[in-house]
């Protein structure tokens, strides 16, 4: 039944009237159809991911716990303590205190380095702006999302924690998966 714009009468498709013998027959048929539908769910099997034992791999662009990076060849930190990440952070959860590199104590590749680098994970909203703001790719978002803890003070991640290679707790989805 196609709509004819020239016609003044709009036809409406209606289902059969409820009640009566036909209604009872249809109810019976529809009940059997429903029983079949729910039985097919048993045949289909379960879709549950049993979380603590089994984890859904995260995508490469997933924004999880932050990581700070070092140069692979020299072992110097990439972070130069410019505080752009702290400026970009909408939740104001990053604290950077910069200090000068000296010849005896060279920590980063630039002139200055981050003497203190803290991220308060209880405030972080995982927006990823710090990663975008960073001119040296010193901070990136990792894949970990299991960050719950019993104390708020334990959720302030220091520079050492962010620099350390995290335990692989979250499977990462391979390219194209």
């Amino acid at each position: 039944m196609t709509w004819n714009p020239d016609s003044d009468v709009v036809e409406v498709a209606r289902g059969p009237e409820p009640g009566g013998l036909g209604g009872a027959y249809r109810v019976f048929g529809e009940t059997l159809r429903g029983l079949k539908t729910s039985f097919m769910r048993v045949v289909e099997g379960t879709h549950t991911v049993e979380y603590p034992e089994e984890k859904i791999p995260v995508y490469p662009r997933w924004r999880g716990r932050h990581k700070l990076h070092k140069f692979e060849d020299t072992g110097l930190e990439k972070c130069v303590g410019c505080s752009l990440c702290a400026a970009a952070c909408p939740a104001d959860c990053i604290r950077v205190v910069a200090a000068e590199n000296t010849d005896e104590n060279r920590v980063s590749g630039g002139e200055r380095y981050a003497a203190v680098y803290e991220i308060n994970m209880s405030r972080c909203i995982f927006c990823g702006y710090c990663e975008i703001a960073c001119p040296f790719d010193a901070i990136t978002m990792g894949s970990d999302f299991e960050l719950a803890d019993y104390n708020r003070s334990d959720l302030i991640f220091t520079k050492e924690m962010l620099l350390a290679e995290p335990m692989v707790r979250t499977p990462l989805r391979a390219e194209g998966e």
Partner: protein
Amino acid sequence: MTALVAAPLGAVNYAEPWWAQLIKAFLIFAIGFSLVPLVLLYERKLLGRFQNRPGPNRVGVYGSMQPLADIGKLLFKEQFKPRGAIGWLFVAAPIISMVAALATMPLIPFSNRPQDIFGTPVGLYGLDSEIGLLIFFAFSAIGSYGILLGGWSSVSKYSFLGAMRGAAQLISYEAAQGLALLGVVMTTGSLSLSAIVDQQGDQHVWFLVPQIVGAFIFFVATLAEINRTPFDLLEADSELVGGFMTEYGGGRFALYYVAEYVHLIVAGAMFSTLFLGGWHIPFWQGAPGFIDPFVVLAKTLVVVSVIIWIRATLPRLRYDQLMSFGWKILLPLATLNALVTALFVVAPWS
């Protein structure tokens, strides 16, 4: 001690010592109570499968301790009572409900052959009465008192509504349930449950085939009698909070819950006794006697699974639909079924 031998009961003619009957009474209670957590877990697992999820699987191996955890939680909770509730009725109602449910357990015959246990012949049933079916109906009617009194005595809108719905629903479906069985009773000529099963063995066909209409009506009416979906208007979680058990908590709620699942088991066993040939296995006449109870249990499991299947499928009926279905469809159909069966029973050509 020969003076204390109990008189032969019902269709099976042999005497049983009084202590055997005491042990049997205890056993039926124990088995009935231990079947409840099993069915509880089975229902939750199966219902999960119907929804593409595995069901409870955290407590114990495959969730096997889940019902114990549930029951333990309920028993350790505070048993509160609403202010203004009618005290002794409020306490008595769940007990009435559960006693009435458990009282129907011994009626289920598991075998007609007395088993020789340590030299004593023991019948595999609690009570093989000549009026077994009547006792079954009597106790399911008493069970509805537990629901009515519970809803009424807790002085709450939702409880009261649930109880009133329960009163109407149970009374109207009891009529159809009873009439649906008239065909079976007339064909057998007895109200004894073991005689009904024997008749199905003698005529080599289960009552499900000649009494298909009666079986359908009995099944649907039983769903209503044991408050299962789509007839769970007494509880109606989404509209009446919890119906008649709204104000119950802790152990008293557990009693209602246990009664509900005993009803489910008894309904399955009753249906398999009346329509699925009890302990008879099709095309196998010489089955050994010890197998009989397991056959009955297997058939019960099948019926219980179907009831759970229906719960996973159908939504709750509207109240007026429930009433018109009971009075306008089931009752006339049951009457017609009884009439036609009566014609065939007395017909000169048969």
